[in-house]
């Protein structure tokens, strides 16, 4: 079943994520994808995440299609202008890529080439509008395409925005993304379920499936790092304590993730598990969560 079919079927969705690395070595990523392929509806492939120069999302997404996995091709506006973005989308389509996640992208200063020229010709909203235009058989300039794609466009939202203004703005932008054609949302990692529930209550009227983000906690140190450095992610102190107190970090990590997945199951339409190298733990998380 394709990701689009899974989405349209209304079933509880499971997506995961792989991040290509710096260099041409893809073996470990292919192995990771192979371990989870029967348990997920799609796998996201990140686009130079954290603005670090890496192997590209399109190439790796294409490798996933060869394995019979439906990839979600992540595309940011950071590095390409509208010419390159449109061209890459057409290229992605002929390579068998059917789902696109439109993002603004981190600023280049966050990564390992901090003096690169930031592009941001299009942002996540205009990127979605452009995908809709390509789907309708035209480019952004209104020229007719000879052969049009039929992408399933998705977007992201950060439910953990840390103040009222930021959250209101996230929700306003979410509405714009829906108007611009977003058919599903994947969220930043959720740890505080009560806070997430409040967010869901505010946006459930939008009637667009939300796939809640889950990042496997690998250690207490990682949790503290995210609290300090990752916008919109807050790991509550009791969870950090659980990680500190355990003798078996992997087991505890799986247990915590499964607990979150279980609760998200009653709140939203799916989970997006970001295992950050621990992909082989994903089946155990899903088993424990009863999925």
């Amino acid at each position: 079943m394709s990701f689009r079919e899974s989405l349209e079927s209304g079933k509880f969705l499971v997506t995961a994520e792989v991040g290509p690395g710096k260099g041409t070595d893809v073996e470990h990523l292919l192995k990771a994808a192979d371990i989870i392929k029967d348990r997920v509806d799609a796998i996201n492939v990140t686009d130079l995440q954290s603005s670090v120069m890496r192997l590209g999302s399109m190439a790796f997404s294409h490798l996933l299609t060869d394995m019979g996995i439906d990839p979600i091709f992540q595309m940011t506006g950071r590095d390409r202008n509208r010419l390159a973005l449109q061209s890459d989308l057409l290229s992605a389509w002929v390579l068998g890529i059917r789902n696109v996640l439109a993002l603004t992208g981190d600023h280049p200063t966050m990564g390992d080439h901090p003096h690169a020229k930031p592009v941001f010709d299009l942002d996540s909203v205009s990127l979605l509008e452009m995908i809709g235009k390509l789907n309708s058989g035209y480019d952004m300039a209104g020229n007719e395409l000879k052969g049009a794609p039929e992408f399933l466009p998705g977007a992201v939202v950060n439910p953990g925005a840390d103040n009222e203004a930021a959250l209101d703005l996230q929700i306003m932008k979410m509405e714009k993304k829906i108007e611009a054609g977003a058919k599903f949302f994947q969220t930043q990692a959720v740890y505080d379920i009560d806070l997430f529930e409040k967010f869901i209550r505010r946006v459930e009227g939008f009637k667009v499936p939300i796939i809640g983000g889950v990042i496997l906690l690998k250690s207490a140190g990682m949790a503290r790092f995210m609290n300090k450095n990752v916008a919109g992610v807050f790991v509550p102190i009791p969870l950090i304590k659980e990680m500190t107190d355990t003798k078996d970090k992997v087991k505890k990590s799986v247990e915590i993730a499964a607990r979150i997945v279980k609760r998200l199951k009653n709140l939203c339409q799916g989970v997006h598990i970001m295992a950050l190298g621990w992909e082989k733990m994903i089946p155990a998380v899903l088993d424990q969560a009863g999925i």
Partner: protein
Amino acid sequence: MIVGERKPMEELLGMIEDFERILVLGCKGCVTVCCAGGPKEVKTLSTLIRMDRKQKGRKVITIEASTELQCEPESIRPILEKMANQYDVVLSMACGAGVQTVAKLFPDKLVLPALNTNFTGIAEEHGVWTEACLACGDCVLGRTAGICPVTLCAKGLLNGPCGGASEGKCEVSKDQPCAWQEIYHALKRLNRLHYLKQKPQVKDWPVHPGRVVREDLREVETT
């Protein structure tokens, strides 16, 4: 105003190494206001150049002058023409537009920039200036409560913030407020939050170099 900073002394001294008669030319416009290239800075720079040459035992003649606006031909022509035989090189303390105006008017004289032109900005406090306008040619300030997202959002986003802000600060710098959160607060104060819900915008970038032609003014000139 246009904000500039004087280049490091070492770089400046390297640029003028071959010359003995130097016209240090300030501008009484923006760069005077931002204390980078006005009459006062002309005096200081000339003194520093003479001190350096004295130390090296080399001759130098510095002529100090300042134009009203160095980007206005009429403001510089009389000064430079009058002294044309007295200098070999112009060390301009104006912004890039001033330097280029001198170069254009006096193609037989070498003109060197003494400043790095930073941006069009405003004084935040004494000694601190921040960028305010990218001169994008399609002003959106009316929709954003007078806070420019093209300039003040590090990504120049037009349709709301990214998800990177933390505690109201931009992901690029903890010293930089998230422009979109500032816009949100300002619009809320003005009871205009609905402005945020406007149709998504795509910016059509101007072709550089820009050119403004005002036919109404041209007609007046020729009649």
